[in-house]
């Protein structure tokens, strides 16, 4: 059984799950399909990761699907986030049903059709994200990212409210424009490679082929290509000034979708950016790309600050937090050097684990208070929700990079890279901005979680939601003190690839 089968399995499982749940009749079967599919997917992802660790890289269909350590890491993280979201989604949508969120909920007809839309679109969404990581061809990668956008448009407008349609429209439009810029960048890269490789076949755009002789590419074209790619995939990653769709999409989408958007799609967009960053640094040398990345990184972290300090909704504050973390990762890549790429990928991993937890807590609180506005919550959530409250506070401290938690370790590595490569001013500015964001977060969330007992009815949280919450929280606590050896080795390998060796 050649190693390629794993790649096929990874892609086949979500497709099958999508089709099956489209055909399924009852909610319980749809939930079961999704859960089993994503559990199997995580298993295959772990298998792929171990294969990659041993064999260096796995490929199938003569290089059409290829997975080196970077893509194996992406697949692993996407599978993990998908599983966590699906576990949470079960509880989330059951509570939505009880709260009669779906309009004209007549005889459950509308509910089932909405749920079917969710349970069939989500596997497609995950399939597209996995294809991004596994596609060796940059063109196919673009197609996959476009597919993620299209799959998630209807997931954002899931509730059909006026505001969620507005959010979906903005997401589609800005995403469409961004990806067309990315396509233009891919075309230009293909053109600069075409002059050297002279092949018409598909391999002309395969990353593995391009990376070997990137040095001879034409300079100006590669510069324009990288600019367009940065703007294009930057839009998908929510880098400022292309971040404007993010707060609306995250506050209107159902929480599991928002979590996947925040954690998994950000990874795929940054994965695409890393691929082109490697080509550009090989062709133009690191100076050009890192200059751009640092400027955009600082811009993203800076843009998040005012919206975190003065914020009305705790769903939107999480959106700005992921814009801020996108900026930090971009900065990590921009600082470069051995530590920069490693810090960035470490941060990517920890972010993909911590961010969903925060979204789940926000989801619980929102469902309990029937609104996501700080104003509406009179504080003291810890009393009616003894599990969600403390975990929400702990998650806030983790996401803002307070030391005992792992996010600080990755931020510290990135800052060390910054100081190491004499980018003193951006690193110091980053620290100041991070402290301000911490202040904004702590003030808002502490006021929400702590306080006198608001006499709200004590919530009997559904088992699934509590499992996902406690599971993720304990994982974060463990990660603060122990990072599994093979995972760290995988990250180091991926960092070597991203660093351009």
């Amino acid at each position: 059984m050649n190693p390629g089968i794993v790649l096929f399995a990874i892609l086949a499982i979500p497709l099958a799950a999508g089709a099956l749940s489209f055909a399924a009749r009852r909610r319980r079967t749809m939930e079961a399909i999704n859960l089993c599919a994503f559990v199997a997917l995580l298993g295959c992802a772990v298998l792929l990761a171990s294969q990659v660790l041993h064999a260096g890289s796995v490929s199938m269909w003569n290089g059409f699907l290829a997975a080196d350590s970077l893509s194996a890491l992406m697949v692993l993280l996407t599978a993990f986030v998908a599983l966590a979201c699906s576990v949470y989604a079960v509880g989330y949508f059951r509570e939505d049903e009880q709260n009669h969120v779906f309009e004209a909920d007549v005889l459950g007809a509308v509910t089932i059709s909405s749920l079917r839309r969710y349970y069939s679109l989500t596997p497609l969404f995950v399939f597209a994200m996995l294809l991004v990581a596994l596609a060796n061809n940059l063109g196919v990668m673009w197609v996959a990212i476009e597919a993620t956008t299209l799959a998630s448009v209807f997931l954002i407008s899931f509730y059909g409210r006026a505001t969620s349609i507005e959010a979906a429209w903005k997401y589609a439009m800005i995403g469409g424009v961004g990806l067309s810029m990315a396509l233009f960048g891919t075309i230009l890269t293909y053109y600069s490679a075409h002059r050297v490789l002279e092949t018409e076949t598909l391999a002309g755009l395969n990353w593995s082929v391009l990376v070997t002789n990137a040095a001879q590419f034409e300079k100006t074209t590669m510069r324009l290509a990288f600019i367009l790619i940065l703007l294009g995939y930057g839009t998908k990653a929510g880098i400022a000034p292309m971040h404007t769709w993010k707060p609306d999409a995250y506050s209107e989408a159902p929480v599991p979708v928002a979590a996947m958007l925040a954690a998994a799609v950000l990874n795929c967009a940054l994965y695409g950016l890393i691929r082109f960053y490697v080509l550009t640094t090989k062709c133009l040398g690191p100076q050009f790309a890192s200059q751009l990345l640092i400027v955009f990184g600082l811009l993203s972290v800076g843009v998040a600050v005012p919206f975190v300090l003065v914020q009305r909704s705790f769903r939107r504050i999480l959106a700005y937090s992921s814009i801020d973390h996108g900026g930090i990762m971009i900065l990590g890549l921009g600082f470069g050097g051995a530590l920069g790429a490693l810090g960035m990928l470490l941060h990517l991993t920890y972010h993909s684990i911590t961010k969903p937890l925060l979204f789940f807590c926000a989801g619980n609180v929102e469902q309990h208070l029937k609104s996501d506005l700080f104003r509406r919550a009179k504080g003291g959530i810890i009393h009616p929700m003894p599990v969600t409250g403390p975990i929400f506070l702990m998650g806030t401290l983790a996401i803002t990079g307070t030391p005992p938690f792992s996010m600080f370790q990755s931020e510290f590595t990135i800052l060390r890279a910054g100081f190491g490569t004499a980018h003193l001013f951006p690193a110091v500015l980053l620290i100041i901005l991070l402290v301000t964001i911490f202040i904004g977060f702590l003030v808002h969330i502490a006021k929400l979680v702590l306080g006198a007992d608001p006499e709200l009815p004590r919530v009997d949280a559904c088992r699934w939601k509590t499992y996902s919450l406690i599971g993720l929280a304990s994982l974060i606590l463990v990660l603060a003190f122990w990072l599994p050896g093979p995972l760290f080795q995988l990250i180091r390998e991926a960092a070597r690839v991203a660093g351009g060796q």
Partner: protein
Amino acid sequence: MHFFQDPQFGNRIITLMAAFVLVLQIAMVGQRWLVTNIRVFAAQSFLLAGIANTIAYFNHAPHLYIAAFLTFTLKAVALPIVLERLVKRIDIGQEIAPLVNVPLSLLISGGLTTVGYVVAASFHRPEETMSAANLSVANLGHNTLAVAVSLFLIGFYMMITRRKAIMQVLALLSLENGLFLAAISLTYGMPLIVELGIFFDLLVAVMVLGILVYRIQETFDSMDVSKLSRLRG
């Protein structure tokens, strides 16, 4: 019938068609009526298919024929029909009020064209390819890149100034046309599977946007996108 083989003739034809495509694009910017805009877009796609055919014919690149055929069937025929039926069903006011008045838009489109030429000129010199001496078949149609970039920029600008949702979709599609033109002019199209993937995505995108436009019309009972501004902060 010897002139069919002469690359010089091919080059002339392609440049002519590219010029027409640019004119149609600027016409779309100036155009106020919705249905006419859809037809202008269809004409533009038709011309694009023509360019693709000529390049394919002169370069004997079989996969380009398929791309040209797809462009023709999809963008020149299918999409306009779908969009017109959508416009008829919603029977919104044909007339659209752009954000920026028309003369200023035309001026800006002119500016964007110059930017397109500056960008295109920076990385490949059309004049040396034009000289008869080394007019090889390989670099036929390179001067259409400038048109492609300006098409892209003007399409982007049109998205910003249009209020109607359908017009924004059209602007996005014309933007995609720019990209397709850039692809065929630079590298005689992307590898086939990538082309198929792009077309498939385009198709799905239009369907998705169509459904969304319909939903917007349903909830906001108007196509005006500037009404969509309740999410702030």
